[in-house]
């Protein structure tokens, strides 16, 4: 019953926060309105999100986020360097296959998103069974290193969070 009324508690929480960010004025009325919307919207759209992913270790999210933000900043500088100062001939793009241990779609998505947002990599495709990720690297003289780093730096942590 509660599951039906509150299909995605985390989503509800997110929405309440989003509401506060939108109205930008923390008042009891707004909080109430946010709460109502945060309850109603997931309820109405529950059919589109049939299964609820489990979060084993929510606190690990914070650490993960911090790492990603740092990596993003670094990524941007690196990419800017490549664009501005590296000749095209000296740049070595490469495709990399990342075998996946993750099984939840949500986790895979977060991993793929992270890859795209971080240094010189874009997650370009998944295998038809969902057990491998295709990543394109802007400049990767050593593709295997990229694969290992991704698996170690991101996938491991995500595995902890989700599975």
């Amino acid at each position, binding site marked *: 019953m509660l599951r039906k009324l509150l299909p995605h508690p985390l989503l509800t929480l997110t929405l309440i926060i*989003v509401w*506060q*960010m*939108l109205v*930008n004025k923390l008042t009891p009325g707004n909080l109430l309105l946010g709460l109502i919307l945060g309850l109603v919207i997931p309820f109405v759209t529950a059919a589109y999100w049939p299964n609820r992913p489990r979060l084993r270790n929510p606190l690990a999210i914070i650490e993960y986020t911090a790492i990603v933000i740092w990596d*993003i*900043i670094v*990524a*941007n500088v690196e*990419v*800017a360097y490549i*664009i*501005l100062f590296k000749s*095209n001939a000296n*740049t070595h*793009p490469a*495709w*990399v*296959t990342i*075998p996946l241990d993750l099984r939840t779609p949500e986790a895979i998505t977060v991993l*793929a*998103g*992270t*890859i*795209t*947002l971080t240094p*010189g*990599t*874009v*997650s*370009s*495709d*998944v*295998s*038809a*069974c969902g*057990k*491998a990720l*295709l990543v*394109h690297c*802007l400049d990767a003289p050593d593709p295997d290193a990229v694969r290992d780093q991704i698996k170690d730096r991101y996938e491991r942590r995500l595995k902890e969070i989700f599975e």
Partner: protein
Amino acid sequence: MFVEILISAGLVISGIFGIVGSFGLIKLPHPMMRLHAPTKATTLGVGGALIASMLYFGLIERDLSFHELMITVFLFLTAPITGHFIAKTHIHRNENKDSLPETGTARPWATFDHPQQEQEQPEQQS
């Protein structure tokens, strides 16, 4: 003063990454390489502008808002999808099974995964 410097720095960084991203779009030789330029550089570019804006309104105009943060989050959520789709377009149009590495699994990359045609299905209307 510090605030001003912070904001100005944000603005300058934003401008640099913005223009670099768009420049990369022109400069880089390969479609997949071009994909790296804007999805990243622009993300920090616009992110910088948004943070600068947040700081500006919060600290100088005394009218702090999280709107900019929302946009940033939103862009961070969507940029990977956009990149993913553009990459898939490229794979679909310009690559084939041999030009890409093996998946290491039994199935091919999803873009190449053509399920066998099934029988015609009558019109479904609601």
